[in-house]
């Protein structure tokens, strides 16, 4: 992956995360504090959190090609940094148990991370399908 492709993939990830955080906030909010009302400025939260979560993904960009174990270690490091960042950034509502809230938040971050990783893998799968199609075309044209 070139730096340009990496930046494009991070922008795609950012948009995906904003959507996922918005959905998760709506679901968690409906479960934990359904009576709570939000103000307009709260709508910025998914954007700010998504931007903050995309930054640590720089960990997974490397000039030298990593081995599969190195790559997996970086993914775990990336997830850990994101978990810590979100747990620091998001504070629970006043009348909600902190431990319960932190666990729910941690699980939500993990689920979103897995979904985002799967989305990126799916994009690479689509790219490889495109390569195979182009390859067939090249072989037929000879």
């Amino acid at each position, binding site marked *: 992956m070139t730096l340009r492709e990496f930046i494009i993939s991070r922008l795609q990830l950012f948009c995906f995360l904003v959507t996922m955080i918005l959905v998760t906030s709506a679901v968690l909010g409906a479960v934990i504090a359904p009576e709570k009302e939000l103000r307009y400025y709260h709508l910025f939260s998914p954007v700010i959190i998504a931007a903050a979560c995309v930054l640590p993904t720089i960990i997974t960009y490397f000039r030298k*090609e990593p081995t*599969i174990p190195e790559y997996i270690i970086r993914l775990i490091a990336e997830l850990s940094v994101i978990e810590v960042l979100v747990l620091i950034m998001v504070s629970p509502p006043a009348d909600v148990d902190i431990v319960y809230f932190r666990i729910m938040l941690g699980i939500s971050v993990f689920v979103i991370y897995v979904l985002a990783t799967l989305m990126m893998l799916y994009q690479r*799968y689509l*790219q*490889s399908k495109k*390569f*195979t199609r182009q*390859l067939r075309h*090249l*072989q037929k044209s000879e």
Partner: protein
Amino acid sequence: MLEIHCHTLSDEVKEIIAFVKSRNGQLTGTVDDTMYEIPVSDIYYIEAVENKLFIYTKSKVYETKQKLYELEEILKEKHFLKISKSMLLNLMKVSSIKPSLNSRFIAVLYSGEQVIISRKYVPELKKALKGDT
């Protein structure tokens, strides 16, 4: 038809013969000190291993005295592509391409063998598949 006359068949002359043959769609390789002519269309990939260069066909592996960069240049027009620091792949022998975990791709050959396409060479692959090379 090209004729080469020489007093002794030295290594240099052998290299010249191999070069001329490779331009004509054939490579020269050895197996157990026996020399063979290998049609380029039979080659799956060419790999450098510890300063030696090997030519892989469906069922045989030949050693060649030619250099990887020389073959890269000669075989470029025959849809051979460098896919890692040490390997040239014949795109005509690839049945499919699938993703690998660490930004690499895997080329599945018609022989069933799989070879790794390094991240660094993916842009070249894209160009080759679009017909830019």
